[in-house]
């Protein structure tokens, strides 16, 4: 089928988006709307002695000013973690935090929300916000996990000794210690997986309006999870039934995990519109986004690998610190726990002993950012493998080949109780090595050197665990015979408006033009969990399959009635219900139309044709793949030029190659960003943000990236009915180590054995200078 599964179908959403007709949250203007501006904490840690709003209140156009005291007086709650380890069966107590929507008594990071100002115009609100006087008693701040766990460090919470919320450890410490004793070779790396931010090109934003007639508030918001926003606001902030709040997300300009949770501003505009009974809109500046968005990564780790003389891994050991910032909110514990759970990645490792601590500091919270714990785990493992290969004089491909989990060992249970259902790691790596012209490297290296550039190559093998939580999808035919997909997931760039109809068209034989798609409105979608963690195709796609199955089963009954046959004799294929062994048949569309016939239908068939599907993976799916990069480094300037990038990915069955390749390319772009450019930096003494604009937080641009070569090795997943594995994160997980390893390969001849991320020209220049000095 031309528009069916696997076809490179172009996107339904694109004509709208590329003519300027997309409707992102800042494009929504409501009649008589007022404008909100947030007063953010200007310090990283301190006690709020007083807030003087008198001058601000008197400023032109000001309608409303609210502070933490008002929130307290109105009985509004705060945001907590979606789960702590103890909530998911890990008997480890942890310090649980509640993030207020406006600070009460204390601020714990720069950019914490202190007051809300609402005025007639955005400029008036900004001017008035400048007049809000907050008197702080500044306290010493701590910004890094390494400093925060030391005795005597500033305490973010008095109740959390050494700023530690909880410590987790997995594996067998004793067995690992014994393995290290007997090992022929041990390798050690120290890693700082740096702090990043998603920087979706559309900032967060919201617009809320209260309807006096119905008592309902509607919140327009840029989010990945509209129902999650409603659940959090209703349950934890306003303590009211969810029927009071309708949440709508239209076009959303990227999220990458950062918009997966809920933010104080979303509560503030809802609260404010109810107070002034006018719509209240909030649009942040880029600097406000950099300061107030939840952030990602920030893990410091000491890692070791024990190997026998042949290069077979005996044991893996690492101890990490995860800087979770000032609050543990939403899915904050996902990256902390997932880095541990994926620790052994794709290798058959006899014993592991891995642990981390969730450490509070005076910087914003970390929550999932594209990869969320998997990039950390894979970066550690691949850096260890590369370092070991170099130290032992073993080819890095060969060392991996000796240790990869074999395809015939599937299903394979890891030390952290993941069951890898499928995967051809060795074959996928071989495919990538061939595609990357591995053997032609030496020639290219010689050419580079002749041009004053060092060349290096890096191979990384990644794995990801995808498909978290359950979800719900509906298919509803209307009396004309068109069908509507009602999605619990939420596409914000992934192209669900295209791929889901592709699948339904394939399964039900309905023309794609007759398939409509609805998402992102809690009044139109009864329930859903949104899109994040590469979950939508696995969970949403599988649920959609079950919804289609229900349609087919119900359709058989209608068809049997109309064609005067027994339902058991009706067969469905190619969009037709056929009475077996006869030429009597009805199309799906005809059956759907009959289902709305005004009279004469047996009551047990009900009215109309619709199906609801739910899916919860009993085990995650495990997309995996091999990435190989080649870099050139200018010997004069230290600048890295990413010259070649090849990826071979196993995402299971691919629904749409065009879109799947796009996910890999975009993911790689972000992974390369971390390796070469991106870094959130805070002044260690004051906790001030040093990277508060695009001038300082360096984003990958078109001239920073090469054209990549993307191939697939489709190994169907066996833990869901459609054989898919997550597509969204793998590019990011694999690219970062592939690039850093290539840089180290290029610089080893100069005595450089380590480089921090991002590997900026200055850092490379410094590493070269240090190596020269040490030589």
């Amino acid at each position: 089928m031309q528009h069916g599964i696997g076809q490179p179908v172009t996107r339904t959403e694109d004509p709208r988006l590329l003519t300027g007709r997309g409707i992102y949250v800042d494009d929504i203007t409501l009649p008589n709307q007022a404008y909100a501006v947030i007063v953010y904490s200007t310090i990283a840690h301190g006690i709020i002695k007083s807030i003087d709003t008198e001058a601000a209140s008197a400023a032109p156009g000001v309608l409303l000013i609210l502070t933490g005291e008002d929130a307290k007086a109105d009985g509004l709650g705060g945001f907590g973690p979606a789960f702590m380890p103890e909530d998911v069966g890990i008997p480890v107590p942890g310090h649980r935090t509640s993030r207020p929507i406006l600070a009460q008594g204390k601020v714990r990071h720069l950019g914490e929300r202190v007051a809300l100002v609402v005025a007639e115009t955005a400029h008036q609100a900004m001017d008035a916000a400048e007049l809000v006087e907050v008197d702080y008693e500044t306290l010493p701040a701590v910004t890094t996990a390494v400093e925060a766990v030391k005795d005597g460090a500033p305490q973010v919470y008095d109740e959390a000794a050494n700023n530690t919320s909880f410590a987790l450890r997995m594996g067998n410490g004793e067995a690992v210690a014994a393995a290290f004793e007997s090992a022929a070779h041990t390798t050690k790396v120290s890693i700082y997986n740096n702090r990043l931010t998603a920087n979706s090109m559309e900032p967060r934003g919201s617009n809320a309006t209260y309807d006096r007639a119905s008592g309902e508030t509607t919140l327009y918001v840029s989010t990945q999870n509209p129902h999650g926003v409603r659940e959090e606001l209703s349950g934890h902030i306003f303590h009211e039934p969810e029927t009071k709040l309708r949440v709508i997300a239209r076009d959303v300009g990227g999220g990458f995990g950062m918009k997966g949770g809920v933010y104080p501003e979303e509560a503030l505009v809802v609260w404010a519109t109810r107070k002034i009974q006018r719509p209240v809109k909030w649009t942040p500046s880029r600097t406000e986004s950099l300061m107030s968005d939840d952030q990602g990564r920030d893990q410091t780790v000491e890692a070791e690998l024990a190997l026998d003389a042949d290069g077979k891994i005996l044991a893996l050991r690492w101890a990490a610190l995860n800087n979770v910032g000032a609050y543990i909110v939403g899915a904050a514990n996902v990256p902390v726990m997932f880095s541990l759970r994926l620790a052994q990645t794709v290798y058959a490792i006899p014993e592991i002993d891995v642990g981390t601590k969730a450490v509070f500091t005076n910087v914003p919270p970390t929550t999932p950012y594209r990869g969320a714990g998997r990039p950390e785990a894979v970066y550690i493992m691949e850096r260890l493998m590369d370092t070991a290969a170099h130290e032992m004089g073993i080819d890095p491909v060969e060392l991996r080949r000796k240790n990869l989990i074999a395809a015939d060992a599937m299903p394979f249970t890891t030390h952290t109780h993941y069951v890898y259902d499928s995967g051809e790691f060795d074959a996928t790596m071989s495919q990538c090595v061939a595609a990357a012209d591995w053997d032609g490297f030496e020639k290219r290296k010689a050419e580079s050197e002749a041009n004053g550039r060092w060349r290096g190559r890096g191979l990384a093998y990644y794995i990801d665990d995808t498909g978290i939580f359950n979800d719900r999808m509906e298919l509803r035919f209307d009396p004309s015979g068109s069908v509507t997909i009602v999605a619990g997931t939420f596409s914000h760039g992934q192209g669900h408006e295209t791929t889901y109809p592709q699948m339904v068209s394939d399964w039900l034989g309905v023309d794609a033009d007759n398939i409509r798609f609805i998402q992102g409105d809690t009044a139109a979608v009864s329930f859903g969990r949104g899109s994040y963690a590469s979950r939508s195709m696995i969970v949403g796609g599988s649920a959609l399959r079950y919804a289609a199955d229900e349609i087919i089963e119900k359709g058989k009954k209608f068809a049997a009635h109309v064609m005067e046959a027994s339902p058991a004799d009706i067969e469905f294929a190619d969009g037709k219900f056929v009475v077996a062994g006869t030429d009597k048949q009805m199309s799906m569309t005809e059956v759907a139309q009959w289902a709305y016939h005004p009279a004469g239908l047996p009551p047990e068939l009900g009215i109309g044709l619709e199906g609801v599907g739910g899916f919860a993976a009993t085990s995650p799916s495990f997309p995996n793949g091999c990435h190989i990069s080649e870099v050139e480094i200018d010997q004069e300037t230290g600048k890295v030029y990413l010259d070649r990038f090849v990826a071979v990915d196993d995402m299971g069955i691919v629904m749409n190659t065009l879109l799947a390749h796009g996910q890999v390319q975009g993911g790689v772009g972000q992974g390369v960003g971390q390796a070469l450019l991106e870094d959130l930096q805070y002044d260690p003494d004051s906790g001030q943000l040093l990277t508060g604009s695009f001038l300082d937080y360096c984003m990958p641009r078109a001239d920073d990236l090469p054209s990549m070569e993307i191939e697939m090795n489709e190994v169907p997943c066996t833990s869901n009915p459609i054989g898919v594995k997550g597509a969204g994160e793998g590019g990011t997980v694999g690219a970062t180590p592939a690039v850093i390893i290539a840089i180290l390969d290029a610089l080893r001849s100069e005595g450089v054995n380590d480089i921090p991320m991002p590997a900026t020209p200055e850092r490379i220049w410094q590493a070269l200078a240090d190596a020269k000095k040490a030589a």
Partner: protein
Amino acid sequence: MAKHHIQTTINGDEVDVLCEPSQSLLDVLRDELHLTGTKEGCATGDCGACSVTIDGRLVCACLVLGVEVNGAKIETIEGMADGENLHILQSKFIEHVALQCGICTPGLLIAAKSLLEENPDPTEEEVRYGLAGNLCRCTGYQKVVEAVLDAASELRGA
């Protein structure tokens, strides 16, 4: 503060608008004229989401004051297609799936059109440098570059 009366031509239409002296061209387009296809990504001229042309010159609308465009000819994304007929760049963006979330796409299209007007036969490297002022977080730029090169080739052939 008194508003200024601006007369300008936007996508071929003569437009009269009153604007504050502090409003950027981006604010005027979005807030006064409701032409919301031009997006704000940073308001500091670093991301290119608000790319428009003024008298044929590519600019970030966030860095131009509304009062500066009196008498100028402005082209925005809303004027790129000819009615329902998409510009070849728009068609190629669809064909190559050169967008994901789409928020940066209007700016990229305006910048790409401007690039091809100056250089109808760019190399891949020239396209990458030419579009380096436009940030895209979703695509890794590859399909954007492919679409622009393909459009250039087709425009030359036409």
